[in-house]
């Protein structure tokens, strides 16, 4: 039985495939985000009430996206999402098993949220083509910013006067984190182009957004940009050569 309830807009097969994949990543990515915030809550009970609230918000985002999908004849592509999210989950599980709260904060609160914010912000420019999605994405985007703001404040306090420690943490988490999440950004770039967004603009927004978050916690501007661009460049080169990034 096809879950596609209605297809109010006329889309090409490529466009339908692209939006199915992108919304699949959004729906199941939000579930992974919920799981990561729950893991963080277990590691630091003093933050558990807030982090569990974040987790419920993320799960709620996934539910809202599913509703929006039904209205718009979109079927979240679970296989695509699982393939993209498997590497992220294994990293998150490893950090959680090590009780590494700070690594999870950088991975989820900075890297994953940067991808989400960059793509959701961009989606708002075409949301009118998908009835009901503008309100959903606006709400979700505001809540993602709320999560990022808390993580930024936490990391600023945690690494107050310890910028070198923060740099080492970021370098350690980024090696796999950007390879994974940045790789997903490259892998969805073509699909973003297909639905009349710009994959490269989204990638640029993610890089700029993530660099700004690093600056907010203590990186110099040049160091932040060099660090982020340096991690993305190998992925971009693979993308340019038509190779899979993950």
């Amino acid at each position: 039985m096809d879950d596609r309830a209605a297809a109010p807009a006329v889309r090409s097969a490529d466009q339908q495939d692209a939006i199915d994949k992108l919304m699949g990543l959004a729906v199941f990515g939000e579930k992974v985000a919920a799981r990561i915030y729950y893991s963080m809550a277990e590691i630091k009970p003093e933050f558990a009430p807030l982090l569990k609230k974040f987790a419920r918000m993320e799960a709620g985002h996934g539910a809202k996206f599913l509703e929006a999908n039904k209205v718009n004849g979109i079927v979240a592509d679970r296989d695509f999402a699982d393939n993209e999210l498997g590497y992220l989950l294994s990293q998150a599980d490893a950090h959680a098993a090590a009780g590494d709260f700070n690594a999870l904060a950088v991975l989820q609160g900075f890297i994953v949220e940067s991808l989400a914010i960059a793509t959701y912000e961009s989606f708002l420019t075409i949301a009118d083509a998908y009835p009901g999605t503008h309100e959903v994405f606006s709400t979700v985007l505001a809540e993602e910013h709320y999560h990022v703001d808390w993580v930024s404040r936490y990391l600023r306090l945690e690494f107050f006067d310890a910028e070198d420690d923060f740099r080492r943490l970021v370098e350690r988490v980024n090696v796999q984190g950007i390879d994974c999440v940045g790789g997903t950004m490259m892998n969805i770039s073509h699909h973003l182009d297909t639905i009349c967004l710009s994959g490269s603009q989204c990638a640029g927004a993610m890089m700029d957004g993530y660099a700004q978050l690093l600056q907010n916690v203590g990186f110099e501007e040049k160091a932040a940009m060099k660090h982020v661009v340096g991690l993305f460049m190998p992925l971009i080169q693979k993308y340019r050569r038509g190779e899979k990034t993950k």
Partner: protein
Amino acid sequence: MTDLAVTNGQERLLLTILRSFEALAADQYHRTIGVLLGDEKHHLLEQLDAQVPTDEALETTDLAPPVKHLLTLLRSQDKIQVLIVQGLILELLGQTIYKTVSESAASSPAMRRLCDQGLHANAETRRHVVEALRQEFPQRDNPPGADLLDALIARSGPVLDQLNTLGEGLDQHFGEAFGIHFADLMAEFASELLVVCTGLGADRRRLVGFLTRIMMAG
């Protein structure tokens, strides 16, 4: 005159490429914005000419066609074009290359000394470039820096795209020899460019988006 000769083949190849670009830049500065052509740049060119007086080291490699194509794209007598593409972008890229090679343990003493001279020339030129950009693009526009960014995007795209094409060849020829990797060069270059341009009022998000689009374009 140089008292140390660069004899290593890879070093001579890199110096030949650098000489081609430095010579073109010097010619363009002379014709359009004389203040950018200072004593340090003259001195660098003399040293490069002494070390690699011909293109022989380049001609037999697969880098010759893309390098020549890039040089062709760069030829312009337009003051703003020269200021942005040569003065801003290629000087920053040159700085990155000179710095990387100068710091590479694999570089010969003669190569290191030449690269240090390159850095001196580079710093001298860049001081005037930033001032010239401030004069050409005063921050009276709204939003600030928009005119500079518009000009940079309009004029540098083909050159950056060709640089990107050249990137893989550079990795093959210089990756092992000097530990120069295009990805690292671009990271250093892009971060410098962003800092300079935001210092002149340009919107960083828009510039990062532009650079990402160029780098991702196949």
